């Protein structure tokens, strides 16, 4: 493996990790606050991708300016977070917080199954491809390798902005501090008068929007096909579990670890590509049962 291949693998890994991070951080944020592992998170990712690719394809065919691709992604993400994520939390998840973990996961699994068929009904089975955003930014040559600016620079920058924005938002804004308070101790938060239900709804919408945003960004680099949501949810579960549940910075580090591991596997041992996330997760959890950055929780007696 020469230096160029190493660089190529690193570039692939970084751009892939940026997308995985956006989805995984939403999942871990929602888990941290709601204590529900949301399987339907993968559906938001797929919906974001489908919405961006299909609407983008339609408006660019109608002759609108190509730079609109970027605001479109943001718009699609927010709309899906509010219009799809919002009602799901409000009318469905809101009713199941008293149930046991297993049943909560299965409720979100049911939502996932329903949304899978909704996608099929709306967009059919054929793949969508809409690379206007990718082509807009052109290419750059680093270490003799020509790579798209979109994947090498834009995606990682977006991921870093989201990471810093989330951290600052949680520390500095009122809503962010309320979210942190509910994450730390829900009962205490209720006692001092925080409207926990509203915080749950806001957090869920943010999380769903992040997943949809990941899908919107991914739609420029890959074909949008049925089943993409399932692949992504399994992968982001692996990232979240490896990082430790509820860890935001941990999710970034782990996404990078798994992204790089995967892209190196593509060049060195392609058979292992899909296995790398599981192998990393397995290895990490064997040594650190709560994940890389997870803390051991006190058990109730």
């Amino acid at each position, binding site marked *: 493996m020469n230096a160029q291949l190493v660089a190529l693998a690193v570039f692939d890994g970084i751009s892939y990790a940026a997308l995985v991070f956006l989805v995984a951080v939403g999942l871990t944020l929602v888990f941290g606050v709601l204590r529900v592992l949301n399987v339907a998170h993968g559906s938001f990712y797929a919906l974001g991708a489908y919405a961006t690719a299909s609407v983008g394809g339609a408006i660019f065919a109608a002759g609108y300016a190509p730079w609109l691709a970027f605001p479109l992604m943001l718009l699609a993400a927010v709309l899906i977070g509010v219009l799809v994520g919002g009602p799901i939390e409000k009318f469905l998840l809101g009713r199941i917080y008293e149930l*046991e973990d297993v*049943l909560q996961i299965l409720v979100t699994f*049911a939502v*996932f199954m329903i949304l*899978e068929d909704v996608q099929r009904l709306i967009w059919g089975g054929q793949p969508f491809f809409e690379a206007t955003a990718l082509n807009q930014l052109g290419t750059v040559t680093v270490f003799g390798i020509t790579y798209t600016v979109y994947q090498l620079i834009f995606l990682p920058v977006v991921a870093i902005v989201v990471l810093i924005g989330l951290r600052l938002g949680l520390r500095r804004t009122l809503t962010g501090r309320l979210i942190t308070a509910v994450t730390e101790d829900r009962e205490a938060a209720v006692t001092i008068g925080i409207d926990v239900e509203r915080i749950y709804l806001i957090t869920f919408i943010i999380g769903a929007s992040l997943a949809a945003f990941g899908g919107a960004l991914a739609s420029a680099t890959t074909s949008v096909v049925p089943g993409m949501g399932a692949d992504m949810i399994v992968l982001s579960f692996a990232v979240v*579990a490896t990082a430790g549940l509820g860890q935001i910075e941990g999710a970034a580090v782990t996404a990078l670890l798994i992204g790089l591991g995967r892209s190196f596997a593509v060049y060195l041992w392609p058979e292992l590509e899909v*296995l790398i996330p599981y192998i990393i*997760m397995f290895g990490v*959890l064997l040594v650190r049962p709560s994940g890389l950055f997870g803390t051991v929780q006190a058990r109730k007696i």
Partner: protein
Amino acid sequence: MTTRAQILRVLPYALLLALALVPQVYPAAQVLLTLALAKSLAVLGVIVLLQAGQVSFGHALFFAIAAYAAAFLGNSMGGGEIVLSLVLGTVCSAAVALVVGVFIVRYRHIFFGMLNLALSMIFFSFLEKFYHVTGGSDGLSVARPRVLGMALERGPFELVLFYGTLGLVIGALVLTHRFLSSPVGQMMRAIKTNEVRLEYLGVSARNVLLAGYVLSAALCGLGGVLMSTAQGIVTPEYAWWVRSGEFVFIAILGGAGSVGGAVVGTLAYEAVKTYAAAFAADIWQMILGVVLLVVILFAPNGLIGLFRSWTRRIGSAPERTGDRAGDRVGAGE
């Protein structure tokens, strides 16, 4: 006078009798029922773990291990012997469960589920990639085995397989019920209610869970061998996570509180799936999703629980004996 206890006592036997009469009354459903009964064994395995409050998203692993082990054995012996295949497959699954279980029982909840998923996906990839050993995504064909040394034609073989599967399911139900009523089974339930208390009693929660894990893997293995024998082929899809998810789905649908939920759930699930796939092919997944939601929100004890509350309403003398409707999955701490 019909009392609730009488209905509850008679109904399981009536259901089994109805099942046993299917080849005579409605032969078209015989093969489908064989497959459903084989699957119900794996669901039973998942129900065992649910007693301890743990859910595995990778139990198809043990389903596939046993099916492949039986296929290798059968193909190396030119057909093989069904009894030998069943024993070998089940033992293989149980042995693998014993080895990986030593690590896996250290984890709970989502970590437990995810590690099982990881293992099953690793095995799935292994089956797909190592083409020269496993036949890749085409899988391996399973030759029709002999039954106690007799080579049977297709028709009689399928009939024998149906009754054999039905017998094994009944045996497994009785055995699992006895396991769950035994001290070890009660301790498994204690893991769900309060594991720390269990440890204070001087019991190793890990060893208890390991016993349940091995039993559940053996049940999955038994189901896997029967399924592959009935289908005549085994593919990597046997280990896919969708299949694992299906097992968990059916367990909740049927009712995870009792062993009978496995059979009732599987029969109901296969019926819905067959009709949904025939009349609403585009939205069958959506139908299953809606059914799952309705069951969890309005009937958390599954079909078995629905039936129990129905008999309670029509029964003239409400009794509490043997009523385990309280130990629904949702009855956490």
